[in-house]
């Protein structure tokens, strides 16, 4: 098993009503699989919201395998400025 720390911001925080989630996942779980779990957890509240994935504070261009201790964030459209 791997332990993953998930940071929640903006609409993700609003949908899941939490800043942070700690999950234990099967070895070999990928970022896209985790996204699916998070979307299910939100019970439809994240439908229609596009999210980029950051692992250890960097955007990742493709689906990757997660590792024990990774910090993952599902980044809804940003709104700085």
């Amino acid at each position, binding site marked *: 098993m791997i332990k993953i720390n998930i*940071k929640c*911001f*903006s*609409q993700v*925080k*609003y949908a899941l009503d939490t800043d942070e989630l700690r999950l234990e996942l099967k070895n070999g779980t990928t970022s896209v699989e985790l996204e699916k779990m998070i979307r299910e957890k939100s019970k439809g509240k994240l439908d229609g919201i596009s999210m980029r994935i*950051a692992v250890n*504070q*960097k*955007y990742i261009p493709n689906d990757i395998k997660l590792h024990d201790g990774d910090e993952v*964030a599902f*980044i*809804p*459209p*940003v*709104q*700085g*400025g």
Partner: protein
Amino acid sequence: MIKIDIVDRPLEFFPNDDSRLQDGAELIFNGRVRATEHGDSITALEYEQYEGMAENELFQLAEETCKKFPIHDLFCKHRVGRVNVGETSLHVAIWSKHRQEGIDAMSWFIVELKKRVPIWKWAIMEDGSRIPSECSHG
């Protein structure tokens, strides 16, 4: 040179500096909070950041901007936390030899900032409720 700062208090603008010898153009952009967000009246925005990543992305973007355009310096401050209507949330200053390259760099920098720097707005409505900005129009 690049300076990047993300702060949770009112922004102090970069001070006037008459000592630059080769910067004919100084361009400053201040993004301010408007009293309406998606058509609804608000009293403030609350800016949320992904701490660490926001500053890193902003710095990397500033570096890219300085490579892509022939500018000399780019300083940027972004405020997080509650920012009242009228106050400045984003302060960017760009120095360059000529005007046009500064304008082009400013345009691009802000467009990209709004695409990739992990900062979000929560609208503080007149009744005190607090919702992600994108949700405020239903």
